[in-house]
């Protein structure tokens, strides 16, 4: 619980000081949507090491952290570059045995977060019966029974990240954070974590939040730091502001499995986030926004 009236705004450059080496960090977003990529880049610039990253459906965020040797452990239910292939650096580090990992079932991870958010040591559910995954992790999954009917259920242990980093559309200085498009696991990661860092497309005054309170998915009392990071999910999407930058993702995927990734990471390290935006978005940002506008629904079935 943080003071609801505090001004929690810090610059992106302060992020490294908020996330110690070795911390477990839940990263929001899912698929190619709304990963907190400005924060990912900043953790690389800050030289963080041995982070235990937690993702439900990770993509370029996890692969870039693996490429930059930031990770000490990876907990995930999926990591993929989808149309651009498997995630080369996550693959390489797991296959070579250098990155310890925990593969969750997707629902199991979310229920572990839910348990922590509700102050429970575990939650039961009708689990992934028949899957080989639970037996791999007796410290996470166990068999339990309904106390009333005896039905066999899966218990999943509460999952408490040291830090959750999520990217919102807008946020005020108190940390009242709003989403309009994909929020994925963001809110439930935040509720489970000891500390919450919100990056956002823009910091706004409280009255802007109050105008549309139904969009506030994370009230400020959960939040410890607020960081303004325009295009902070790039090259993943932030609906309704911009679509995924498939061209930058393809560029990344082309280099990620080769020696060129060393230079790619070195460039991220050596430039500021302002430099990054200028380099990849000049003359392109408006088209990434237009991709959202031109996306079409089809006539004929809006009953």
């Amino acid at each position, binding site marked *: 619980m943080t003071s609801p009236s505090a001004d929690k705004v810090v610059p992106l450059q302060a992020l490294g000081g908020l996330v110690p080496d070795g911390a477990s960090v839940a990263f929001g977003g*899912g*698929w*190619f949507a709304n990963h907190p990529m400005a924060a990912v880049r900043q953790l690389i610039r800050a030289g963080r090491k041995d982070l235990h990253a937690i993702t*439900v459906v990770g993509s370029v965020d996890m692969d870039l952290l693996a490429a930059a040797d930031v990770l000490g452990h990876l907990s*995930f*239910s*999926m990591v*993929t570059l*989808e*149309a651009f292939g*498997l*995630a080369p650096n*996550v*693959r390489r580090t797991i*296959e070579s*045995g250098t990155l310890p990992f925990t*593969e969750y*079932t*997707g*629902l*199991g991870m*979310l*229920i572990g*977060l839910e348990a922590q958010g509700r102050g429970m040591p575990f939650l039961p559910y*009708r689990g*992934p019966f*028949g*899957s*080989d*995954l639970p037996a*791999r992790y007796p410290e996470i999954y166990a068999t339990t029974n309904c106390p009333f009917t005896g*039905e066999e259920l899966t218990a999943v242990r509460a999952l408490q990240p040291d830090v959750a980093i999520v990217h919102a559309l807008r946020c005020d200085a108190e940390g009242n954070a709003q989403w*309009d*498009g*994909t*929020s*994925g*696991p*963001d809110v*439930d990661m935040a509720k489970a974590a000891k500390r919450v860092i919100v990056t956002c497309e823009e910091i706004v005054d409280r009255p802007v939040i109050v105008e549309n309170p139904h969009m506030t998915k994370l009230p400020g009392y959960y939040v410890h730091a607020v960081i303004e990071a325009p295009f902070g999910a790039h090259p993943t999407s932030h*609906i309704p502001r911009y*679509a*995924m930058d*498939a061209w930058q993702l*393809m560029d990344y995927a082309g280099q990620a499995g080769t020696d060129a990734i060393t230079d790619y990471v070195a460039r991220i390290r050596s430039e500021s986030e302002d430099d990054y935006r200028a380099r990849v978005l000049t003359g392109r940002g*408006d*088209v*990434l926004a*237009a*991709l*959202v*506008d*031109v*996306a*079409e*629904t*089809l006539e*004929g*079935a809006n*009953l």
Partner: protein
Amino acid sequence: MTAYDVHELMVTRVAAEVDEDGVTVMGSFTPLAYASYMLAKLTHAPRAYLAGFDAVGMSPIQLSFTGAEAAAYKGAVCRWGMLTEINSIHLSNHGGVEAVSSAQFDGDGAINLSTIGPFDKPKVRLPGGAGAAEVIKMYRKMIAYFGNHSSRTLVDKVEFVTGTRWKVGAESRRQAGLQPGPIIVVTNLAVLVKDEDDQPFRIESVHPGVDPQVVVDNTGFALDVPSDVPVTAEPTAKQLELLRTKIDPFGTVKFDFLSGKERLQYLESILDAEWKRAEATVR
């Protein structure tokens, strides 16, 4: 009969399974599954209830790699997050028709999206199953689709069970608190169905021109082959027109049927078309 490609036949066959009962969460942008749901919604199942990304109760959308997510929100009636979706759809038994693909699939209805080789020291670390580990068990119908029907993918036993249908027959599913419904496999050669725990998959139909023996030879698990195997219904001219002009004008579904250099070039050409359409509105 309009000429068609096999991926179009697969879309129409998967679409035929999509009905108006229950809710389907589509998750990441998988073009063949998305196209099938959209086709169903524009034809026989307009009330099919879909969730894509965090958009719940979607309108049908035009497919594109960069625009599918934005389009999903435009006609949707509700915006949730992942946890609300799994609690409100999957775990509460509202799941309708789940379409998945996987690196390996076996005759028990198990999928492997985890590893080739030892789990701790994999030869190939696969992406992981996300919600599929639980969801393929829970949904009323499980559809598994594969663009390359091969005994390397359709194996006797998966190397690692990421998730499985678990209970298959209607009665055993009911007893386990699950909705009864079959496993349907749609490939580039045939349609396979399993609806009993102790019976193998049977060939429901072969696609036009496919010899059932070729299906058997390319399947790693036992198949029940009826004495007279029907032929899969071909796409109609209307379905093809909807797919080509409305649902998937950029050709995203075909992408997953290409390999190697051709695949990358094809992706670049689609993305180029998507970029130009957007750019034209701001330049």
